[in-house]
Every structure is written in structure tokens, then in C-alpha cells.
């Protein structure tokens, strides 16, 4: 690659402008990190890290203040697990069908159809969960509350399904034909080839797509803010009202909490936890996808 030798002032100016555009993303990230970090550090000067990580109650606004992060983490974990449990089987099996079995014309309809699911606004999904899915679930499951983790979890799963299916399909398609042909040559049936040869070979790509979808589910705000409730409780019961980290941030930001107070800083502490989680997920997913492109 040649080094750009800016011969005229104009070329230099354009080079500088393009560089600054590219730097905007880095500067923004650094800015966000700085704000998060400074407020979180201020938060931890008043609340000990051990209380934050060990207490099982989260009631920062009330008379008896507790700052244990676990209720919010449990809420997020519960809704995200339900979402993944919905999206992975459906997404993976759709991906297998579309790449191995679907006739070309059907595939041309199915693939965009799945992409449409990703295009539905999340607030529409939220109300769909609240007014359609929850009553249906209430008819089947005893003691199912109006706000719960199961309903938004399922709807989130539907929302992230295109992510799983599309990326898994790419991973499956990237498996070399020689592997498949080798399996057929050895007398394997189609199903055996898929589940014993192709999927293991595509596994790092599939896992990467699942992790990406999971990080999307963890950061999802609108659906859970509408349908999951606003009661921070440390539970794994999907039938009761809970509160996720994202919904808590919405609750406080929309309220009357004065800036600079401890209650205000809880937003940043929770935001930092969220950031760390999604960053770790994205990093892992990135690593796995690189392995996919470099492998075999």
C-alpha cells in the first residue's frame, strides 16, 4: 500500500476531514466511557462494592435503601434466557432448513420474511407482548401475572430470531462442500450429515451469532419496560413482575430525581454493569467469528 503523499493543501484538508470522521466514533465511545466511569466511581465512594455485589435487594429510592444489583441482573438474565431459549431452536432450525432443504423459490420468500421480523419497532413488540401474548399465557399457566418475564422473553426471542438464523445460515453455508460429500460418501444420511458433520464444523459461527443475539436481548429496553414490570425482585420465576437493568434506567431517567444525587448515580452504576456485560459478549462473539473465517 502506498502512503498518501498529499501534494496539495486541498488533498491534505480532505485527508484530515476523512480522518476526523473516522475518529468521531472513537471520540464518542471515549466520551461515553468517561461519563459512565466518572459517575460510577462517584457512586462507589458512597456504596461499597461488596454491598453492590452481595445484597439481594434493590431499593435505592425508598426509606430502607438497598443497593444489591442481583435483582436487576436476575431480571435481565431471566428475560434474556427465555429469549435465547425461543430464538436458538427456532433460528437454528430455520437456518438449517433454508440452507440445506429449502427450494430456491421458497428460500427467496422465507429469508426476507425473517428479516421483516427484525424491522418491527420494539415498542410495537412491547405492546404485542402486553396485550396479546400475556393474556394467552394467562389462559394456560396458573398464577401468571399481567407483568411477567415469560411474555416479553418470548417476544424478544422472536425479535432476535433473524439474527440467529441469518448468521447461522452464513456459518453453515461456509462449511466446505468437501466435508458434506465426504460424509455422504461414507454412507451417512442427510440428517446425520447435518447434525454430526456440518453443525459441528459451523459451530463457532453459530455460537457467535447466539452470543450476538444474547447481547441484543440483554440491552433490549422497550419490550421489557412495557411488558415485564417495574418491581426489582431476586427471583427465577418467569410468571411474576420483575425489573430489568434497562427498565430501571428508564424508570429513573423519566422521573424527578435531581442530578448529582446518589439515586441519580445508580443509573450510571447499572449502566456500567450493562456495558461490561454487552462488551464482553461482543468481544467473545468477535473472537469466535474470526476463528470461523480463519479456520479449516
Amino acid at each position: 500500500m502506498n502512503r498518501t503523499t498529499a501534494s496539495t493543501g486541498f488533498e491534505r484538508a480532505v485527508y484530515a476531514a476523512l480522518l476526523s470522521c473516522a475518529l468521531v466514533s472513537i471520540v464518542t465511545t471515549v466520551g461515553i466511557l468517561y461519563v459512565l466511569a466518572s459517575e460510577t466511581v462517584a457512586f462507589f465512594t458512597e456504596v461499597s462494592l461488596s454491598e453492590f455485589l452481595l445484597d439481594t435487594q434493590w431499593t435505592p429510592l425508598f426509606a430502607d435503601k438497598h443497593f444489591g444489583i442481583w435483582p436487576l441482573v436476575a431480571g435481565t438474565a431471566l428475560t434474556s434466557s427465555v429469549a435465547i431459549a425461543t430464538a436458538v431452536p427456532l433460528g437454528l432450525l430455520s437456518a438449517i432448513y433454508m440452507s440445506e432443504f429449502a427450494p430456491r423459490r421458497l428460500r427467496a420468500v422465507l429469508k426476507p420474511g425473517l428479516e421483516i421480523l427484525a424491522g418491527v419497532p420494539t415498542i410495537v413488540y412491547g405492546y404485542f407482548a402486553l396485550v396479546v401474548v400475556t393474556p394467552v399465557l394467562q389462559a394456560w399457566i396458573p398464577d401468571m401475572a399481567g407483568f411477567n418475564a415469560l411474555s416479553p422473553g418470548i417476544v424478544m426471542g422472536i425479535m432476535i430470531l433473524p439474527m440467529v438464523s441469518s448468521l447461522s445460515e452464513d456459518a453453515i453455508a461456509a462449511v466446505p462442500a468437501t466435508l458434506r460429500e465426504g460424509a455422504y460418501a461414507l454412507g451417512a444420511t442427510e440428517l446425520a450429515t447435518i447434525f454430526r458433520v456440518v453443525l459441528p464444523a459451523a459451530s463457532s459461527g453459530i455460537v457467535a451469532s447466539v452470543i450476538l443475539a444474547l447481547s441484543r436481548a440483554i440491552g433490549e429496553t422497550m419490550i421489557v419496560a412495557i411488558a415485564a414490570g417495574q418491581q426489582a425482585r431476586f427471583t427465577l420465576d418467569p410468571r411474576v413482575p420483575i425489573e430489568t437493568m434497562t427498565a430501571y434506567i428508564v424508570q429513573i431517567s423519566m422521573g424527578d430525581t435531581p442530578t448529582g444525587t446518589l439515586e441519580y448515580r445508580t443509573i450510571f452504576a447499572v449502566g456500567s454493569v450493562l456495558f461490561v456485560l454487552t462488551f464482553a459478549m461482543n468481544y467473545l462473539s468477535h473472537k469466535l467469528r474470526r476463528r470461523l473465517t480463519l479456520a479449516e
Partner: protein
Amino acid sequence: MKIHARSHTTFLALAVVLAGCGSKHKAAAEAGGGPSAKGAGAPAEAAEGTVTVDGSSTVFPITEAVAEEFQKTSKHRVTIGVSGTGGGFKKFCQGEVAVTGASRPIKPSEVELCRKNGVEYVELPVAYDGLAVLVHPKNDWVEAMTVEELKKLWAPEAQGTITKWSQIRAGWPDKEIHLFGPGVDSGTYDYFTKAVVGKEHASRGDYTSSEDDNVLVQGISTDPLALGFMGFAYYVENKDKLKLVPIDDGNDANGAGPIAPSAETVSNGTYQPLSRPIFIYVSKKAAGRPEVGSFVDFYLANAAKLAAEVGYIPLPDKAYTLAKKRFADKVTGSIFGGKGSKVGVSIEALLAG
């Protein structure tokens, strides 16, 4: 090139500043304190002929109805913000608005702020609000509750410990209780904690708290194990989805046995302790302006009719007469002694002095 760019920036900045100076009208915002940051656009004593109002989300429906009727017959305009009782007082005591709605009397810290800024206020009760305790219509075990039971359920000590219906009263199901109520920014929350637990802002924290009453209605009406409290007006709007719980305050002097809230029981003082007056506070200085004076006169003259229309309970006629006189004489100061909420008050007695 440089000068051209700079004048563009100047114009843009000027446009933004001028846009921000325009008064902001906010319609039906249920979220109590939310708009307070954005509502800061409300100007100091705006253009001639405009009355600026802010404050409680509870008082808002009445003020909105009054303003609508007022603007039909008057050339003056009314702009209403919804920053919550606390948020409204902040603006009022800094002279930014002429009138503020409050679902509780003015607090000592707010009295001090007004005094510091030289704002004198005329306190005018405009209606009664009942706080309704509600359960799901399919809840067949709750026929009535006592104040002691409510206290046991909502006290700070109940956090994490009182989690089942059977712990409140023997014979009730051994199932989880799901609680719903306004959040800490709400005047309704302030009053409920004071009336039931005995200390303002003292309650458990593990319930679904939302300043948006419609979220609470949604939560209670879809959950057979739910219990919650909110303003009576929201029950009236959603009668078919909610079941009212009569409350027994153990004091036979103001009505024996459990009493359910209704227009009657709130205004004659038998639904205790969960009845409260709601107010508007008018700046004495602003009251001198013709538009503010005529608006407040119109308010007091029509509050009874319009409050009833929007689900609130009108004060007795005598109370309105006394309030009108109070405004005409511009009597400043709070009939609650500037100490904030009092439980179980009679408005006429307080106004008469």
C-alpha cells in the same frame, strides 16, 4: 467564507434560544415528574394575557378542564405544565409560574424557598381526592381492609418479609401478593405513606412503582394476586377492570365499619384516612394581573362542576365561598401552618380559621 459560516451559526443559535423562550403547553402527561427537565422552557411571567400554570399531575385534569372552559369565553390564554407537586413548587417559588397545582400542602422547605425569593402565595383548596385501594375483580377473598393491615403491608419493615396474602390476615390464600403503587416522586405516594404508615416517604421498596397511573391500572387489572392504590379518579375511569376495597379506620366517630370511597364519603369526611384536599397556589403578585385574577375567579366558580366531571370530589359549597373570599382578600400563608400534609382535616374548619 469564515464570516458567512459564523453568521449562520449565530442565526441558528438565536433561533434555538428564541424557540426555547416560547411557552410550552403539555397535554395529559401522567408521568409525574418526567417533563420537569423539559418543562423548564416555561418563561417568567410570559406575554400579556397568558396565565402560566404548573404542578401536580393529580390536579392537572381539573386545571385542564377549567382552562378549556375559560379559554372559550375569555381572550386570555392558559398554559399548563406537569412537573409534579414538588417540581411545580420549585418553579412557583422562583417566580417562574403564576399558579401551581399541588396534591399536598406546601412543605417547610418550599415555604422557605418562597420567602427567600419574596414570593407570597395564596393557598386555595379546589377539590377532594380519594385514594382508592384496588384489587383484581376476580379477587374474592378481600371484602374490606383495616388501616392496620395496610400499614403492615406497606411499612418499610415489610420489605422482603411480608410477601403473601396469608400473612396479612389468617384465612387469606397462601399465595404471593403483587403490589402496585405510585413512585416516590408522586404526591399521592407522599400522602398515602403519611396516612397509612404514619411517616411521609416511609414505605417498602419492593413493589411495582410507577408515576404513570395507567401502568398501575394495567398491572392490577391483569393480575388476580395484585393489590394497589391510586387516585380515585383513575378507578372511576376503569370501573369495569378494578375492584374497590372498603377501608376501616377503626374510628367509629367518622363512620363505623369499612367505608368505600365515593363522591359522598370523601366529601362528608367518612372515608378516612385516605381523603385529601388538593390545591392551587397563586402568587400574590401575579394575582394582581387581570388575566390571572379572572382565571382564578373562574376556577373557584367552576371547580365544583368540573372536578366532578373529571372524577374528583367537589368541596362543600361553603368551602368554595370561603376560598373565594380568601382569594379576594389575598390572604397569604398556608392554613396547614406550612408544615405539610395533615391527615383527617376539615377544609371548612381550616378556612374559617
